[in-house]
């Protein structure tokens, strides 16, 4: 059977409302009480994604590199604001740390993919750059917030150990090593488990999408393999870069633990 690309029409979308109708019916029958929310959600999905579609077709028509770079910066900023709001951490300069770490991670990982692995021409070709940048930013942000939170927990838990090591003359980096490692391990384990089980239980969303769009599964698989490798590097880079900035915030220039900041984390 040859590849066939099925173009989805607006009529098809309308037909898909049969799912919503079915859900609505079941909800009514069982008196689940979420009917109104379901309808709002249905409309929002339609509007948000349609809007996104128009936005993306506008973006993909752009041909200047500075438009793409500006868009990348905007994506990093919006993600950082979201991450900062989602988790209020008592880390001085936390927002700047998120922006900086995410920015560096995007430049390194995206640059490697575009220039060395896929060799995209021009390098800012939006059909490749924007979706991959989105994945890097999303995964990087998730991993960073998880790690930061875990690190602060570890530091609180190991306060005595950290001060004991400092008191013996250890550098700050050595005194916090245990906390750093625990935090990074905790954030990486799900990513590594992903490497172990991908393709066994379910097809990754991106790969399914490519196959639906008529791409040869072998090509889709190659893409997915690259994404998986990129995924783990993104997590480890974002974690290491952000923690390098974060742990310093908890110490003074005289290598003293800033206990007052750590205490604020108890709330």
């Amino acid at each position, binding site marked *: 059977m040859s590849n066939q690309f099925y173009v989805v029409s607006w009529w098809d979308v309308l037909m898909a409302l049969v799912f919503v109708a079915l859900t609505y019916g079941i909800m009514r029958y069982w008196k689940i009480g979420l009917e109104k929310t379901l309808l709002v959600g249905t409309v929002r999905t339609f509007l948000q994604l349609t809007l996104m579609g128009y936005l993306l077709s506008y973006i993909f028509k752009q041909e200047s590199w500075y438009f793409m770079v500006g868009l990348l910066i905007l994506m990093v900023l919006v993600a950082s604001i979201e991450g900062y709001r989602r988790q209020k951490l008592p880390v001085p300069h936390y927002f700047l740390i998120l922006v900086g770490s995410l920015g560096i991670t995007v430049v390194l990982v995206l640059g490697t993919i575009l220039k060395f692995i896929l060799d995209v021409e021009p390098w800012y070709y939006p059909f490749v750059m924007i979706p991959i940048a989105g994945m890097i930013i999303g995964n990087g942000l998730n991993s960073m917030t998880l790690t930061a939170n875990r690190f602060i927990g570890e530091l609180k838990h190991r306060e*005595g*150990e950290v*001060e*004991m*090591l*400092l*008191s*013996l*003359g*250890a*550098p700050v980096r*050595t005194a916090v*090593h245990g906390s750093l490692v625990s935090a990074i391990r905790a954030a990486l384990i799900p990513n590594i488990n992903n490497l172990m089980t991908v393709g066994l239980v379910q097809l990754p969303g991106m790969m399914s999408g490519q196959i639906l769009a008529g791409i040869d599964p072998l090509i889709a698989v190659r893409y997915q393999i690259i994404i998986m490798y990129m995924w783990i590097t993104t997590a480890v880079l974002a974690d290491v870069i952000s923690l390098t900035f974060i742990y310093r915030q908890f110490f*003074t220039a*005289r*290598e*003293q*633990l800033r206990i*007052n900041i750590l205490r604020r984390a108890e709330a």
Partner: protein
Amino acid sequence: METPPIFELKNVTREEAGREILKAASITIHAGEFVALLGPSGAGKTTILRLFNALDSPNSGEIRFRGERYDEGSVRDLRQKVGMVFQTPTILEGTVVQNLMVFQRWRKDFVLSDEDLYGKLEQVGLTGIGLDQDAKSLSGGEKQRLALARTLLNAPDVLLLDEPTSSLDPVMAHQILRRIKALQQEMGFTVIMVSHDHRLAVKYAERFIVLLRGEIAADGPLSVLKGDDSAAVQAFLNGGEE
């Protein structure tokens, strides 16, 4: 030329969470002294030790170590010379030898033979345990001795002891303090010990500094203490542990 005192605190104030823990305290300590910092809990005793080990900095005032300003020079070198033993010993995951050799984490040239290590353990009276024993399985007294041995591996000029025996029974407490006293006489380091129990401290220290609510209420040998007519100091001494 006269050698400068080992420690000089001049009008040192320390605030924590908006509260003055130490109020313009001035203390001079000479090399080789065995000083007990006495006072009820919250009087600022531990704060002084933390300042000496540079784990905290004063909000105002000046600290000098051997005549040198505390906020200058390498803080790590300073901490090596001014060792601290905490109230609750922090024992790392792993064996006894891993706890003693923790210095290797940042000093690659730190090498000691098993013989040296056993010698160090014997020095603090920790005999009958193996280097490969799980350090977390040691008793409270053994852990405190292990922490002491670890601090002594830095060959400090000053040993800061923060209520080192508070979690131990009196027999064990005296055993450890006798060891420290003997080591002090043998190695010549200075000891500054925080204690809320002056009855224990008088057996080992030669000089007593009583702190009350962040202020130095008395300072001198035992005779000076006994003659101190401050009602607050006498109340603390007569009341013993507050």
